[in-house]
């Protein structure tokens, strides 16, 4: 590996202080915790600023933008939580995000499978077609997309009308992440299955899918969070108030000339909770999922 290590051994006797496996990473001295604290502070404070601002009145925010709430009021948060429109928006957001995620994961893993484990002449070109989807700015594709969905396909103002294009735009990243993951599964698996008389489809169904669990969870979470935060596409496609998603609901707090800033902070703080919770519960599986992807 390195000459440095060998030199060390030659000059100094082996250090026997640390003997436990993996103990080179043991802990926490003060420096490590200190740095961790700084990282946490820098990362979280802006978010906390938003959350705390939700407890203020607009007058208070005007007089003293950077101070503590004075007085602390709960009406912004309670107002949002008791508003039935908020829960309606949350329901729509959830349904659309779930549909998007389902499409992305299923179609994504199905497409990544032959791109990973079959050999055929069109494999690389086909893969590049998907990758190119990553490169084009979505903002400009919106106009023709909108016309097509509302007029030609008549699925405007429905969950599917939003979920399908969102899934389409999430597919490139999904395939990019899933392909190496699927490629990493040893060739022996296929040969073994073949010996047992399984078909390729059966192999996919019974072996590949269960093994790609972590990978699918990864792309699923990324797709869910992406859909949860999406703004432009739902704005254009969801007209009816009963169909709107959470990001669109922010508009309820602004009129043409005025905005209820404190209310906006309260609303957005509450709106980010489901996405965060979802990520929290899945985060362990994400890490192992991405591990497969990047390491091969």
């Amino acid at each position: 590996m390195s000459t440095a290590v060998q030199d060390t051994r030659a000059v100094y006797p082996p250090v026997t202080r640390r003997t436990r496996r993996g103990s080179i990473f043991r802990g926490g001295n003060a420096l490590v915790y200190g740095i961790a604290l700084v990282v946490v502070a820098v990362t979280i404070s802006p978010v906390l600023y938003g959350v705390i601002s939700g407890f203020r009145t607009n007058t208070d925010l005007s007089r003293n933008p950077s101070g503590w709430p004075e007085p602390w009021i709960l009406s912004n948060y309670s107002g949002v939580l008791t508003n039935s429109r908020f829960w309606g928006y949350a329901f729509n957001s959830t349904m659309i995000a779930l549909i998007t995620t389902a499409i992305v994961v299923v179609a994504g893993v199905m497409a990544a499978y032959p791109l990973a484990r079959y050999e055929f002449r069109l494999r690389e070109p086909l893969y590049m077609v998907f990758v190119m989807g990553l490169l084009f700015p979505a903002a400009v594709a919106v106009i023709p997309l909108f016309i097509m969905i509302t007029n030609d396909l008549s699925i405007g103002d429905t969950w599917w009308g939003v979920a399908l294009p969102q899934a389409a735009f999430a597919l490139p990243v999904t395939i990019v992440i899933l392909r190496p993951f699927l490629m990493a599964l040893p060739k022996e698996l296929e040969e073994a299955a073949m010996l047992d008389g399984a078909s390729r489809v059966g192999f996919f169904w019974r072996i590949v899918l269960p093994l790609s669990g972590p990978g699918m969870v990864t792309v699923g979470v990324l797709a869910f969070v992406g859909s949860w935060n999406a703004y432009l596409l739902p704005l254009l496609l969801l007209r009816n108030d009963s169909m709107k998603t959470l990001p669109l609901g922010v508009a309820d707090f602004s009129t043409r000339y005025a905005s209820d800033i404190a209310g906006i902070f309260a609303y957005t703080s509450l709106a980010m909770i489901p996405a965060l919770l979802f990520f929290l519960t899945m985060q362990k599986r994400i890490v192992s999922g991405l591990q497969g992807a990047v390491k091969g």
Partner: protein
Amino acid sequence: MTDVADEANAHPGAGASTATSLPTGAAGSAITLRAAPVKSRRRGMGSGPRKSLEIVFFVTPALMVFLVFVVWPVIKAIQYSLFSWKGYGPLVDFVGLQNYLYVLKNEVFQDALVHNLIIVVLSIAIQLPLGLAIALLLNRKIRGQGLLRTIVFVPYVLSEVIAGVIWRQLLTANYGLIDTVFSALGIPTPAQGYLGDTSLALGAVMVVLTWKYLGLAVVLFLAGLQGVPEDLYEAAQIDGATYWQVQRRITIPLLGPTVRTWVFLSMIGSIQVFDMVWILTKGGPAEATNTMATFLYSWGVERNLIGIASAASVVLFVVALIFALTFKRLVLRRDAIDYEPRKTRKAATR
């Protein structure tokens, strides 16, 4: 990107011992299989037409959705770029490549391109060492490791709109939290505020972008770190290496594939960055923080010059493509994804 992963496979040391966990049945039969000599047979199961059918079956759902909702609108957008069109009524005013000439000769667009390049370089230069350092930190067995990882990832999960609104408040001149804290600490703050000063605005935007996207780098690197086998660390330890020597000689080189994947994603993201910049500055003040995407929006969509907006987006696409292809060529030289890689790789791992 994925070539990267295949590279990792080619490393005998890294790949072999930490394969994904297998159900015991398959592993068992795999082991048995190894012992017996394998007759060379046609690679892959099934014959030609059946195989094509299977491929079609698997790829079709994704391809259909993709073609209809991504490729077709992109083609339409390219069509619009050849016309002078306000977005309403019929598409009649064909102008050929005039829109492209306008965009490429436009000084504001050229500046925007430069800003994009600055963002690409700075993003990598700042987030790579920082992300690596934090990932190394979080790789140690300290208390609350899981919680720490989640916290670091929170800015990435936050919607761009919310993040932008909050940071705009924080960076307000004089009254914002940052200015207030800096003044209290005696640090001089710019007269126009960070977002209002034409020479500092891009820097301020970079700070916010770093805050937002560092979490992704950390999580990716952490994942890559998990893949480094413990035995290597043990061996080094026995040889008496210090912590930093271990990181320098073992960990970081083995993180190569991970880092390259992340650099690719970061590069593409930096070229396309729109939401955060738009909400913070709308490309201002006085076009100081314009990116190609904000140019496209403010000079194209807002002015109802759809042809120009479409032309700018095609240029953006070409720039991203050039970067992607160049990256693939220069950095991922070992192109292991070609038609017949398996033979060579299998030979390497035996």
